[in-house]
Structures are given as C-alpha cells and as structure tokens.
C-alpha cells in the first residue's frame, strides 16, 4: 500500500469514526425500506452517511467527497484483512439458524447465512438494505401483502439456486410448530407464502405488518433440498449458506473458524479468516487480548477499561438496544397504587447507576423501552428525574405509613451487565424512601430466574423483578411495548389499561414511517409512563476492545461486530 493510499484510508477512517459519534436522526426515513432499491456504484450519490451497501462483492460506504457531496466510496479491498481472532465469552452450542436472533448467535447467523434483507445499524438507526431480496414493496392496495424480488443468478454452495422456492421452504420450516424454531414467534403473523415466479415471493400477514421486511432479516434462507435430505440436526453440524463467511471448523464451547465464502451473495469480506475462541472467564479473556492471543474481545468488564486503555487498546462502547427495567408487581398491595410506582421511579438515581457501577458508560433510559434512535422512540416521553422529596410526597399521598413497606427485589446474576450490583444499589436507594422499611435483594441463578420470568417455577414474581428488555433484532418500540398489553403471557404483574391496548394495536397496523404510528406509540408510551408498571433504569453498555493493528473495528447499535469490514492494517 502506498503512503498516499495509507493517508487516504487514514483520513477516511478518522472521518468515519467522527461521524459514528453523531447519530443520524431520521436516517431511517430516507432509507429504501419499502420501495425498489437502486444499485449503488462507486461515485454514485447516496443519502445517509456511513451506511454500507454490498454490490458485486464490494463493500461501499456512504461518505462525503471533497466537494461535500455524499457519494458511495469503496470501503475496503476484500480478502486483504488477514486473520482476526476474537475472544468471546460464549458461543451458541450449535450453528442453528433458527434458534434465536440476539447476540452472540446473531454474529454466527449473519456471518454464515443470508436473510431476505439486512439491517444496517452503522448510523445507530436501523436502515434496511438488500440481501437475498433485491427489492421489496407492499402490493398495491394490499398493505397486508409484501412482495419480495429475489436476487438472480446466485446459488448455494451445493449448487441449489437461491430463488423463491428456497425462501418459501425456509419460512415454511420456521413457521411449522413441529420444528420448534425459536424464531417462530417472529413470523406468527404470516398467513400465506406464495411463489409468484422463480424470483418473486409474496407474503401475506394477518394484518398489515410494516416491520415484516425488517423481521425477515433475521430468518436465514437455506438450500431447501439439502436441508430436507439431511434434516435439521445433521444440517446444523456442517451448515452451508450464502453469507459472507462459511464455517470451516466448529468445536462447541471451544472455537469456531469462519473463512470467506465464495458463494457469498453480495460481499467479499475484508478478513480471510475469523476465529472465535471461547474464553468464558472475563479476566482470562482480557489477559488473552493483552498477551496477543486474540485481537478483539467481547464483554469488557467496566473495571478493565482503564487498564486496556493505558495498554493502548481500542475500546468500543455502544449503548445496547436493551433496557434494564424492573417490572413492578401491580396486582395487589402498595404497588397497586400508581403513585407508589411513580414514587419508586423518582427515588432511583439512574445517573448514579451509570457513574458508580458502569464506569460512566451506558445511558439513562427515558421512560420508554428502547434507546433514542430506534424507530418508535418518542421524544416527548422523558425519564423520571431523581427527586426523593417528590417521591416521599407521592408515597404520603398514597397513604403509605412510614417504614411500613418490606419489599423483595428479584435479580439475575451475571446475565445483565453488573446486575447484582445494580440491584443492591437500587434497593438502597428505595430504602431511603420514608415509607420503605427494607428491600431484600433475591439473587436468582439463571435457570431459576427464567422460571420466575416465565411464571413456571415454584418461586412467584415478587415486588420488583429486574429484566433486560432487548429490542434486537427489530430495533423498534412496538415489540417491547406489546409486552405490557392486557393478557400478554409473561407480563403477569397485574397491569392492564384499555387505552394502552388500543393505542398499541392501532400502531401495529401502521407504516413504520408514518407519523400516525409514531403518534400512537407516543400516546401509549405516555400512558405507560403515567401508570408506571415499570421502574425504568438504564440502557446498559456493551464494551469491546481490540488491538490498534486492526482496521474498521466497529460494533453496531445492535451489539454486533462488523465481521465483514474488520481487518488487519
């Protein structure tokens, strides 16, 4: 590489890094979410800075040229990035494509397989990009029918064509309850899948579902004949797909090796090989980075940040698309009074949780279930400020005598970042309320914790139950807000508000981009804040670290590392 090129790349890197700090609000509206997409070309105009498009094997990024115009620019040369080793706390036990959609499984699934669409989160806001589908749109006059045009002339590594039949077979498999696909919950609204032509598929939903193209980014398309011949269990052992990488070796719980996939639908990745090494112990994982055993590590503990920074490692911190909340048991007792629940929200100093426990990383959650930037976020619904006096006044108004409340706070351990510490801090904050005598923290081992969440075990939900409300992969408020509608299976905290249900159901049928939808979600969010069945906490940080020899080490707002772009200098 010439010095001139190095300078140019360095400039581009600095420019992109600085842009990353600025969230491009409203970018989603400018994105091609429901219309036919135009093919990006180097030098062609683009609309949203930082967005990446994959065209004919190349990765293009939207950047500003010397004239100040936003144009598609070549991001990197495929195959020039060498081998990258990533130390990771845990990997899925199988390479199953349809089990779940959240990290760390999403790293593997997005690397090996392709969905119909791809969600680009480079800007912090979800932007839909083509993947197995070149374009998609709602059928004219039928908002409940989506038409997807499949990429032409591509095939799976075993020679089967990527076409509408493959899409239908894959979705049929996920939707069949007999197959126990974890992602089935994402496609419950689909009522019909039709192969309109070899490269066109029509999907009908029970009601207009504007999030469908985004949801389908998480459902990989598999070679139907091979999958049927082998059966799922055998296929997951040595899976093939059309993602940017292929799995060349996998030892569950130990290591996964990915290599560039010649059958990748759209892009040749920068790195030729990505090796995931499973190192569950935090301190061992950090030591592996410091000793040069790995190039990148996930889940950096907050107390390791300063050590890694001083050792000249790059730290990447994002606010997870997840909210640390506590469901409040509104069924009976003092917490059935919304003034008490509001008082709890006023009594917790969320910024102190960030500064004191999370090393200053993370973000105070507004009284909503998603962070800023994701669709459905409502600017007018803000966080409860920390105001102990007001909290005490509310408790007094609710008629709660002094030192009369003895509460239990159920928390996970090592599931949510710093969960036990946060539970202890919050319980101490609540104990400062005049009416609260004690808040006992009940730390639950993960399997017990899930039992309590699903209401299946012997331990009942108690006064406060901490949960990590993840918006991944939909990155939209609706999916999470639906959890507080009347009768939602796992809520069971006795909360019900007819007006809230109406607003949520109305929003579900509206276009993601429409102002009517945003206004209904805002109305629902305001109701939820007023009723306060939740004690809103913070958006937890997700911290990664890598050595300085890496280029394009980026982690998107969904908590996924950009495996396609990362490479060695």
């Amino acid at each position, binding site marked *: 590489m010439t010095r001139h090129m190095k300078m140019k790349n360095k400039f581009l890197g600095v420019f992109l890094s600085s842009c990353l700090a600025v969230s491009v609000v409203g970018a989603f509206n400018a994105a091609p979410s429901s219309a036919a997409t135009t093919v990006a070309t180097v030098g062609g105009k683009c609309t949203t800075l930082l967005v990446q498009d994959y065209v004919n094997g190349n990765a293009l990024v939207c950047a500003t040229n010397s004239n100040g115009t936003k144009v598609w620019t070549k991001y990197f040369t495929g195959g020039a990035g060498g081998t990258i080793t990533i130390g990771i706390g845990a990997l899925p036990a199988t390479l199953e494509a349809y089990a779940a959609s959240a990290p760390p499984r999403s790293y593997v699934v997005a690397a090996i397989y392709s969905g119909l669409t791809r969600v680009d989160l480079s800007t912090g806001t979800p932007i839909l990009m083509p993947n197995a589908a070149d374009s998609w749109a709602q059928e004219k006059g039928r908002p409940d029918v989506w038409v997807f045009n499949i990429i032409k002339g591509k095939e799976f590594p075993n020679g089967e064509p990527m076409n509408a039949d493959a899409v239908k077979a894959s979705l049929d498999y996920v939707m069949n309850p007999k197959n126990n696909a974890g992602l089935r919950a994402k496609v419950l609204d689909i009522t019909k899948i039709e192969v309109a032509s070899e490269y066109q598929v029509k999907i009908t939903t029970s009601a207009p579902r504007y999030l469908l193209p985004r949801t389908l980014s998480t459902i990989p398309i598999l070679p139907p004949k091979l999958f049927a011949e082998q059966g799922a*269990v055998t296929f997951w052992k040595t899976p093939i797909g059309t993602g940017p990488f292929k799995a060349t070796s996998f030892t569950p719980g130990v290591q996964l090796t990915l290599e560039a996939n010649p059958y990748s639908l759209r892009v040749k990745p920068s790195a030729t090989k990505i090796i995931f090494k499973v190192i569950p112990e935090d301190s061992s994982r950090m030591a*592996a980075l410091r000793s040069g055993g790995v190039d990148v590590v996930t889940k950096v503990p907050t107390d390791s940040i300063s050590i890694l920074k001083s050792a000249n490692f790059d730290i990447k911190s994002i606010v997870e698309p997840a909210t640390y909340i506590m469901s409040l048991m509104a069924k009976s007792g003092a917490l059935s009074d919304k003034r008490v629940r509001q008082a709890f929200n006023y009594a917790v100093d969320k910024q102190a949780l960030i500064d004191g426990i999370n090393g200053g990383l993370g973000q105070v959650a507004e009284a909503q279930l998603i962070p800023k930037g994701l669709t459905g976020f409502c600017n007018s619904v803000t966080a409860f400020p920390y105001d102990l006096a007001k909290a005490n006044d509310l408790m007094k108004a609710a008629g709660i005598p002094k030192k009369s409340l003895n509460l239990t706070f159920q928390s996970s351990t090592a599931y949510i970042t710093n969960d036990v510490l946060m539970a202890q801090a919050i319980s101490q904050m609540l104990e400062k309320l005049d009416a609260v005598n004690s808040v006992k923290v009940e730390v639950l081992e993960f399997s017990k914790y899930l039992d309590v969440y699903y209401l299946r075990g012997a331990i009942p939900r108690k006064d406060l139950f901490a949960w990590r409300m993840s918006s991944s992969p939909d990155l939209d408020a609706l999916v999470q807000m639906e959890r507080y509608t009347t009768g939602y299976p796992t809520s069971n905290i006795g909360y019900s508000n007819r007006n809230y249900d109406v607003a949520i159901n109305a929003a579900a049928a509206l276009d993601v981009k429409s102002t009517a939808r945003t206004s209904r979600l805002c109305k629902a969010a305001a109701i939820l804040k007023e009723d306060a069945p939740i004690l809103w906490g913070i958006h937890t940080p997700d911290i990664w670290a890598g050595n300085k020899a890496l280029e394009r080490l980026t982690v998107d707002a969904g908590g996924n590392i950009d495996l396609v772009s990362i490479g060695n200098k």
Partner: protein
Amino acid sequence: MIRILGSRLLQLILVVIGIGTLLFFLVRVSGDPALAIAGSDATAENIASIRQSLGLDRSILEQYLSFLQNLCTLNFGESYTYLLPAMPLILAALPNTLYLSFVAFLLAIVIAVPAGIYAAVKRNSFSGKAVMSISMLGQSIPPFVIGIFLILVFSVWLRWLPSFGNEAGLSIIMPSVALSAVLMARYTRLIRAYFLEELNRGYVRTGKSLGFTNARIWFKHILRNISVPMLSLIGIDLGKFVGGAVIVEAVFAWPGIGSLMINAVKARDYPLLEAGVFAIAVMVVLLNLIVDLLYLYIDPRIRAKVN
C-alpha cells in the same frame, strides 16, 4: 486380588447408581431445561413442544426408570444444547481433562516429595522454613487466583506462554501449575510431618548404625513407609482434584469436561450432566482402585493378608 477387584466393581456400580440417582433428582428440581433451550424469543407453545420432545412431560418415575435403563447401556441420550449424543461429547473432552490432571498430579508429586524431605531434614534452617512458608502460601491461595497470577506474569507481561486453550505444547504449563499448587503445598507439608515422625523410628537409627547413607535411609526405607498413609490421602484427594480441574479449566479456557459441565449446568442439559458425572465417578472409583492395588505393591503386610 480377584475379591478386591470384584468388591471394587460392585462399589463402582453402587456409587454410579447412587450418584446418578442423586443427580437425576437434583437437576430436575433445579428447573425446566425447555426454558433454557427455548430462549427469550419462544412462545409458550414452543416451550410445551420442547418439553414433549425431550420426554419431560412424563411422570418423574417414568423418567427415572428410563434413566436407569439408559445407565445400564451407557446411553445418556442426546445433549439438549449440542444436539449430539452426550457420552461421546464427554469422551471427546475427557482426554484433555485426564491430560491436565495427570500432568498436574505428576508435578505435585515430583515437587512435593523432595521439597517435603528437604523441609524435614533441614527443619531448623532458613531454607527449610522458607519451603514451609511457600507451601503455606500455596495451600492458602485458591487455584483460580494462582491461574490469573500466572497468566498476568507469563502471558501478559513476559509473553512466554499462551494464556488459554490447548493448542501448543506449552499450553499445559500454566493450567497444570495452577491445578497442582494446592496439592503440591499440602503434600509437601504432610511428607515433612510423616518424614519427621519416621526419622525418630528405631529402624532409622539401626540403618544409621549399620552405616547406610542418608539417601538410602530416606528414599529406600522412610519414603516407602510414608507411602502408605500418603496413598490413603491421595485416594481422598482425587475427587477434590477433579473438582479443582473444573475451575482451572474455566480460567484457562481448557477444553476439558469441566468447561462442558459448567455449560451443562447453566443450560440444564440433563443428559450431558448425567454423562459427565458418570464419567467423573467412574474415573474417581477407578483411580481409587489403582491406589488400592498400589497398597498391595508397597506394603507387604497387606499383600500377605490378601494372599
């Protein structure tokens, strides 16, 4: 000899059934694995279907009888998380655990024996006391702390040794040192104590009066005599040793059964847990059998009794 082998085999069967039964009920009261498998995206219908496919919707008695039946054929079923037969998964990881345990155990013995003897014969010297102080330190620090310390020094600062995994030949050094440290320290102290006791025995004085060298008295006579109580302790320690290996494997991301077992506990992977505990139980009982056979070899009195 045949009687000993027969009784040990019977003991093995009883231990395995006992441990298996205990484990069977313990894991089942810990909660529902279908929830862990289904994940947070799953519907209630998914969870019910998973329970049915795993046979968890049957009565506990039915499940137990089926478990006993499978135990007889060493078929523990398919791991819920890895979707592979559980026993082969354990057997694939077992060599790594055995390798680590064997090297660590050998290291403990090779260092503890001379160190213990040295501390006994030089008991009033500075160096003898230093050996005892170091062994006290080794016994007081948990293996995972020693592991992290070793990683910091030899991987992070000096960059001499790999900090995790089992890829290069050098990978074994730090995990085996961490695992053996407690045992090494314990045996050094015990060997010293036994050795001191033996030094005052009549046969030692007789040997000296006959002009035997110290080395002959120490290694040929005293060491042989203290081997019998030491072997008893080793037999007891073997179980603890495997437990320690689980922790050390986690610190060094060592791909043994310890790492598999930790994942199995988290995921409530009953078949994998049952297969793992079965393998460990068999291993410990067999090692105890070897210890018993060594008694015969070392102590002629026991040999005479058996004969």
